[in-house]
């Protein structure tokens, strides 16, 4: 009995880790620019497809991931430069609408370029690993490893480097940061590049987890991401991570053990609404 629960927890942590990865990107972007970057889910889809493409070309998973990260990072830079930057002085709803439009476009573009059918991402890593009564697939382990490495690198960047300091400063107070001489433009570009690259990894990981790449795979995360930002506390990275894990857990348990008439999205959105109304700082936010 305990082992089943632990198994469930571990399974949902896998999902949660991916959520956390995707949330990091949009959380950083929200933290610095105060824009809800829904189109991040489009980058996620792009990541899955380019990852698949590079893998099929090179037969090297690591190369494929790096290639996809780089490519999607560039996409993120383009989005910031040509779409969000001109919208900064406008009301925030404008950027949000544009982001929604962009996401819809990107998803459809995937359908146009790669066809509407689902494609497999055939990464075979071998047998499942068994520890006592708990069984993990090697892909699960891969996801944990990747996620952990990315979190670690990110933590290092945010806390021990100049650019990380800059990003944190900008999140707190944009104008003060400018006055202090921080290169805001460069920092924001960095945030978009890294955030998009990480989302691309998220896309690839989910693709190999379910062995499927398809144009609407972003739908699941796009609007759920909103819930994650809110739950995570609007800009707190640790909150983003915890939010991702928590949501993964909650979703899995609710859909497995109860009969709530809501889809996974519905559940996430329900929490979103409740939280915004009653605890606008998010579950893990400060203030």
């Amino acid at each position, binding site marked *: 009995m305990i082992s089943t629960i632990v198994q469930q927890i571990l399974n949902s942590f896998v999902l949660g880790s991916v959520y956390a990865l995707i949330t990091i990107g949009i959380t950083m972007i929200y933290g610095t620019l*105060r824009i809800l970057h829904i189109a991040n889910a489009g980058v996620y889809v792009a990541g899955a497809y380019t990852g698949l493409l590079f893998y099929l070309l090179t037969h090297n998973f690591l190369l494929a991931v790096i290639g996809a990260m780089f490519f999607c990072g560039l996409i993120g830079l383009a989005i910031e430069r040509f779409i969000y930057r001109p919208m900064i002085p406008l009301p925030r709803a404008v950027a949000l*609408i*544009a982001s929604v439009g962009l996401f819809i476009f990107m998803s459809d573009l995937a359908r146009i370029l790669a066809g509407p059918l689902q494609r497999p991402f055939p990464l075979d890593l071998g047998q499942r690993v068994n520890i006592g009564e708990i069984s993990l697939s090697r892909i699960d382990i891969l996801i944990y490893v990747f996620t952990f490495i990315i979190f670690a690198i990110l933590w290092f960047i945010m806390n021990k480097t100049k650019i990380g300091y800059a990003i944190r400063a900008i999140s707190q107070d944009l104008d003060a940061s400018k006055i202090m001489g921080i290169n805001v433009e460069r920092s924001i570009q960095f945030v978009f590049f890294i955030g998009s690259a990480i989302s691309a990894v998220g896309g690839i990981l989910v693709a190999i987890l379910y062995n499927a790449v398809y144009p609407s795979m972003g739908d699941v995360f796009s609007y759920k991401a909103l819930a994650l930002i809110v739950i995570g506390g609007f800009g707190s990275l640790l909150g983003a991570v915890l939010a991702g894990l928590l949501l993964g857990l909650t979703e899995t348990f609710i859909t497995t053990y109860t009969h709530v008439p809501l889809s996974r999205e*519905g559940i996430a959105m329900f929490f979103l609404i409740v939280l915004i109304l009653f605890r606008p700082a998010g579950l893990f936010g400060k203030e």
Partner: protein
Amino acid sequence: MFSEYTLTILIFVGAWIIAGLGFNIISGYAGQFHLGTAVYMGVGAYTSALLTTRFGFPFWTALPVALIFSAIMGFITGLPALRVKEDFLVVITIGISFVFESLLIYLPYFGGPVGIGGIPMPKLFGTSVSKEIYLLMVFAMVIICVALNYKLINSWIGLAWESIREDEMVTSILGIDTRKFKLYAFIIGATYCGCGGVLYAHYMTYITPYDFGFLPSIYIVVMVVFGGIGTIRGTLFGAIFMTMMPELFRFISEYRNSIYGLLLVFMMLFEPQGILGDRSYIWDKIYSSWKRLTARFRTNYAPINR
């Protein structure tokens, strides 16, 4: 007179105009950006559908009841708007979209993912109306809705809405209970959308939860934002244009989402007012040409202010 195909398009245009007007009231006048107005269409449609199919009510009874339910839904969903602003409000409306769609899919009472079918056409004098008559009905409703809209925007309530959109705090300081008026916008806007939903449902004769989820809400937004948000002419233009374009140009419906998505992005970048919105490039040209043309027919004792 019209082919069935043309009839269908025109009826759809009518339904979307009315829904667009509803969205325009909430988001265009009152400035409460709402990405979930299809929910109200859904409430109207499903209420009317259930009443006519499961409970045997006639269309003419179901319609007002559906409108009332839409209004109630508008009220309920408007309450969060009193507590949150701007992008948080948008996020909540997105959330409401998803929760609503989800409930419709998972609660068997609403027919599940298959929805409700066999929705009857309305009856006049004992017989079901023909599609031509239905078009006439829709047309009449559009006229009524537009007329009502004009009344609202030229009344103190419309002014209060615009004032709230511009600066809510100042509006409050002036002595207007902004909470009440935001709710009015939601209630009235939702009723409009519900009306559109009813008209849609009884013509389609079947409805599914996917007709009223997030994407349809976005279509309404694209329509009105493209046409000119905050104006009646913009809503009319947007609804007509966006409904007809995919029909006139087949390839547009093939790439509909891409086009709509890009349209949203470009409109936000270059003309957030909409094509015919106040002070948009095109509208300014039309307006000043009109002024120049009609200046000859007007006798002015005072200099023209511009």
